[in-house]
Each structure stands twice: as structure tokens, then as C-alpha cells.
């Protein structure tokens, strides 16, 4: 073993206090490069779909699906919205889009309201066995939706709500209660019990405490719950496909029907536009509400 004397460190040199401006810049560039690469990788499909929705169909056929556009034509959007034939009717996906809205908005609001109430009861008005109820309810969080398909088919048939948006509202409301209850209960647990005691001595009852004390403290968790439910219900398509058909279908199910439309040519421009129409509401919700979503999940009830 060669005995190499280590070079004597220069005075004031601390090997652990390295990284000059150059090294820092280099590592910074590396990080940006890597992250940029990942971002591009994830965003590329979206870009392709957006570009294709504005291209001429013949040009897509000539140049391929993934190519830089050499034409611009918003015709795909008009057709997708208004005239394209899905499942035998030629009125575009606008009907299905409205179906989705008519299904998602009430189901979101009702399941959130029930979740808030459940959470309030399970955190502030505990009763013998409430822990068991909570456990049973949150079991639904881990239950795959397919398990409930047959029971729901039976129930919807029995109450005459098959092939109806109201049926889907019912299904999504009930299926969502596990999540909304879990969210709200875990948030309300952090609200001090003394507030409830003080209000009870002040003469407020169950509903007045809920309305005047709990609800005003709830916006952060309600925003989280609404975003979660809205995107979840909007994007869900299994129940839509199974329990509705044709004009009654929500847009996610209609998109499936649209892609399996057995005609001659694949209408890539129209399909791209239709997919974007279907994806727009959750995107917008995340775009405007994402900030509150993160804040609501990380914030405690009271500081």
C-alpha cells in the first residue's frame, strides 16, 4: 500500500462547506432538466389529444396520429358537441355532458351534506356503538365499486330507477358517504369539545350548534370533500355504463360508446374533442380549487 501523504488543506478550507456557485447552478440545472423531462412525458398525451382535436381528419390520416399539425380546424369540437352520432342519435355528446352535470352536482352536494352531518355526530355526539358505526362506514372506503354492481342493479330495478340519472344520483350519493364521512369526522375531531359544551350551556341544541359553530369552521374540509366527490363522480363510468344506456348515459360512458362506434373511419378529431369536453370540468375544478384542496387536507380545524 503506497503511503501517499494527503495534501495539507489550505488554511480556512472546510471540505464540508463546498459547492460554489458553479456547482450549485449545475445541480440546479440537472434537477430542472430531469423534472422537465418527466413533466413532458406525462403531458405529451394531453398535448397530442389537444392538437388532434384541432386537426383536419384527412391530414391526421395522412400524417399519422402523433405528428405536428399542418392544419387548423375546430370542426371536431362542433361535431363532438352537437352533431356526432353516438349510439344511434346524432346530437353529439352535449346531452351526455348535461347528464353528467345533472348527476354529479346533486350527488356531490347531497353526499357532502350527509358526510358533514355524519362526521358531526360521530365526533361530537358519540353514542354507545358509534365507534362501530364509524368503522363499518369507513369500510366502504376500501370496497371496490364492482362489488356493489349486482345489489345496485337489484335495488334500482326494484324502485324503478334503471336507466335514469336519478338512479345514478342515488348510487353515487350512497357510494360516496364513506369518504365524505371519513373526511368530515376526522376534521371535526380536532374541533375542541369545550366549544360544544359551552354552546350546550348557552342553550344551543344539536342543529344550532351544527349551523352556528361547526359549519362556519368547515369550509376547508367541505372544499376538499366537494372536489373529491365531484371529480370522482364525474370520472366514474362503470355505474354509468351498467345502469344507463344511450341518451341517459353520463359523458364518460358515452365516450366509451363513441370509441366503439362501429362505422368505417375513426373520427380522431371528433373523438379528441369529445374526450376533452368530458375531461374539462374536473380539470377546471382542480385548476381553481387545487390550492384549497391541499390547504384543506393539511390544515387543522382551529389554530
Amino acid at each position, binding site marked *: 500500500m503506497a503511503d501517499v501523504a494527503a495534501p495539507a488543506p489550505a488554511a480556512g478550507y472546510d471540505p464540508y462547506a463546498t459547492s460554489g456557485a458553479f456547482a450549485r447552478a449545475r445541480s440546479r440545472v440537472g434537477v430542472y432538466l430531469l423534472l422537465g423531462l418527466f413533466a413532458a412525458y406525462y403531458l405529451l398525451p394531453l398535448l397530442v389529444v389537444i392538437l388532434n382535436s384541432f386537426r383536419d381528419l384527412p391530414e391526421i390520416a395522412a400524417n399519422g396520429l402523433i405528428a405536428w399539425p399542418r392544419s387548423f380546424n375546430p370542426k371536431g369540437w362542433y361535431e363532438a358537441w352537437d352533431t356526432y352520432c353516438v349510439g344511434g342519435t346524432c346530437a353529439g355528446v352535449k346531452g351526455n355532458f348535461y347528464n353528467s352535470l345533472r348527476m354529479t352536482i346533486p350527488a356531490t352536494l347531497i353526499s357532502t351534506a350527509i358526510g358533514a352531518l355524519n362526521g358531526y355526530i360521530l365526533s361530537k355526539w358519540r353514542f354507545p356503538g358509534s365507534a362501530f358505526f364509524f368503522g363499518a362506514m369507513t369500510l366502504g372506503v376500501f370496497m371496490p365499486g364492482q362489488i356493489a354492481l349486482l345489489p345496485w342493479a337489484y335495488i334500482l330495478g326494484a324502485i324503478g330507477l334503471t336507466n335514469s340519472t336519478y338512479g345514478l344520483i342515488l348510487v353515487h350519493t350512497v357510494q360516496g358517504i364513506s369518504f365524505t364521512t371519513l373526511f368530515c369526522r376526522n376534521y371535526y375531531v380536532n374541533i375542541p369539545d*369545550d366549544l360544544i*359544551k*359551552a*354552546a350546550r350551556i*348557552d342553550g344551543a341544541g344539536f342543529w344550532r350548534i351544527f349551523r352556528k359553530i361547526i359549519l362556519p*369552521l368547515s369550509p376547508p374540509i367541505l372544499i376538499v370533500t366537494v372536489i373529491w366527490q365531484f371529480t370522482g363522480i364525474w370520472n366514474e363510468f362503470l355505474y354509468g355504463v351498467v345502469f344507463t344506456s344511450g341518451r341517459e348515459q353520463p359523458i364518460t360512458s358515452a365516450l366509451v360508446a363513441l370509441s366503439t362506434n362501429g362505422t368505417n373511419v375513426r373520427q380522431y378529431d371528433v373523438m379528441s374533442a369529445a374526450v376533452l369536453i368530458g375531461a374539462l370540468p374536473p380539470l377546471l375544478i382542480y385548476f381553481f380549487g387545487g390550492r384549497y384542496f391541499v390547504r384543506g387536507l393539511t390544515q387543522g380545524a382551529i389554530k
Partner: protein
Amino acid sequence: MSSLSIRNLFKRFGAVEVLKGIDLEAHTGEFVALVGPSGCGKSTLLAMIAGLETVTAGDIYIADRLVNRVPPKDRDIAMVFQSYALYPTMTVKDNITFGMESRRVPKAEQAAALARVAGLLQIEPLLKRKPAQLSGGQRQRVAMGRALVRDPALFLFDEPLSNLDAKLRVEMRTEIKKLHARVGKTTIYVTHDQVEAMTLASRIAVMHKGEVQQFAEPRTVYDRPANMFVASFMGSPAMNFIPADLSSNGAPSVTFPGGDGAPVTLPLASAALASANGGKVVFGIRPEHITRYRPERGAGRPGIATVSALVEIVEPTGAETMGQVRLGGREIVARFEPDDAPQVGETVQLAIDMNKACLFDPATERLLPRAA
């Protein structure tokens, strides 16, 4: 007439018995402090008086009405919480009027009550603020305002000062005392701070392990503690305890081994009833009743006994100097004037005020009554 009367009250949480037969009475206008270490059941007792906890057995009367099954809002009480429990989304004004709003009190009446309380507590400039915009002391005031606005039969305080810093705590303590003097409402005040209990209360209930150890005026609780727990809990530094032998032939006296091993005999100011334990007693004396012997001051006063002891530790606090001396095989705390404080290692002649001595039964730890 009494505002509060509690008879043989029990509380059980599952197998745990938290309260074991509490008897307590508060006369109208009285200030009763419930004091004890944490886990003694004082907060549970208060919650039961408020109706926030159910009664396992026994009776609670408020203003001579049995309230065991009456909901909190109908008990004619107001409560101040340790955490203040101010409604965070409401302004100070809304916090104070929330109760009246719940009871549908007419608006004009609400405004008058609000003005009265805001004036009393000097919180008028804060009425539009939210609790988060208030300091600790201000929150405390608002919490009291919310209670005061009700004009109830009974005020309940649950450790209201323990979230404040030391200086503010003393200020608010004085203020609560003034307030009680002015409003004159019956008050039940839970605290773990024996100084708070001593300064505020007209009677103190010392609680330990779910039982009331002693319920008496502060002076009595301090001078004649019912047992060794009360004696050591009330007062800081705590009372000194020395195992001793009681002799009643001739002048009554107690004997215990001194610092050098030789027996020390101190004459008692008054005879104690013979202990059941063959003359064994625990001799209890508070630090302020042991100090340096000065012939010019001590001579001639009856009941002053002298003993010499070695000083081991000296702790000056400013107003007084506490010294630890070795006596009866124990560390005994004595109080000295700061200018007259001994040095460590010094052997001092101590004067013990035997008028203030307490004798306890070593087996039951109860105070032995004085012979008449």
C-alpha cells in the same frame, strides 16, 4: 337557602370510580374552590354540576331544585372553561350574545346586557374582534363576559387562569375576586393551584382520589388540615412531617431523634388526645413556624420551643430565605428573614412555634384533635 347542594354523589366510568360519595354545599353568594391534584375528580364534579356528565348515583340540587336529569341549558348556570371555548368564527359581541340568542331574548334586552357586561369587564373596544385577534387576558375577559351576561344562579369556573402567564394570572385572580365581590353570585371554582384557592375562596374543598378530604374556610384548611394529604397539598413549601413519640405524663410533649442522634423533646402548647398507636404520632409543622431563635423576640412568648440543627441547603427567594435543616432524621424546611439567614454548614438555634403544630395519627394520617 343554598345555591348548590351535592349529596352522596358517585361517578363511575366503566370500572373506574372517579367520585366516591361527594357531599358539598354552597351557600348563596359563596365562593367555593375545589382544589386537588390532577386526577382527583374535581373537573368531573364540575362537569356533573354543569350537566355535561351524567350522575351515576347521588343527588345534585341547584337553588334547591333537583337537577340530576335537567339538561345544562336549563340548570341556570354559566361556565368559564380553561380553554375559554370562545366560538372562533364569531365576534366578541356574538360570543357574548350567543346564549341570549339561543334563548330568544329580545334584541333590546340583549343590547342592554351586552353593554352592562362590556362595561363591567372593560371590553367595549374589542366587541367587533374575533377571538383569534385577542390576547390571552382579553380572551379570558370575554369568556367571563359570556358567563356574566346570563345572571345565573351559579357560576362555574374550570381552571380559568391556568392558560395565562404568571403575571397575568395574578392580575386576573385579583380581578375575579373584585368581580365576585361586586356581583356576589355563588361561584364554584376548580383549580389545582392552592394559592388561587386560598386567595379567592370563602370555603375550600380539598379533593383527593375522588373524595373530599376537607371542606372548610381557608384559614382552617391551612392551620388545622384534616389529614396529612391536605397538610402537604396546601402551602408551599409543604408542611414538615417528623415521626415522633407522644408523652403525656407531666407536661405533654413530643420526642424525636435530633440531628446528632440525641432525643429532642418539644413541649406541646396543648395536650393532644392519646393516639391509638401506642403514643406514636407524626409531628407536623409549617416552614414559617420554624425560624432562627432570637432570645429578645422569642423569650417570654408561650409555646415557643427551641432546638438546634445543622443547615444543609439555603434557598433565597427574595422576600424570604428557605433553609433545609436536618432534624428527626429528616430534611426539614425552615423559613428565615433574608437578613438573618444562616450559612450552609452552620448549626442554628431554631425557634418552633408549637401553637401551630399539628399532630397526625401515623396509621390513618388523620389530624389528632386537641384536648379541650
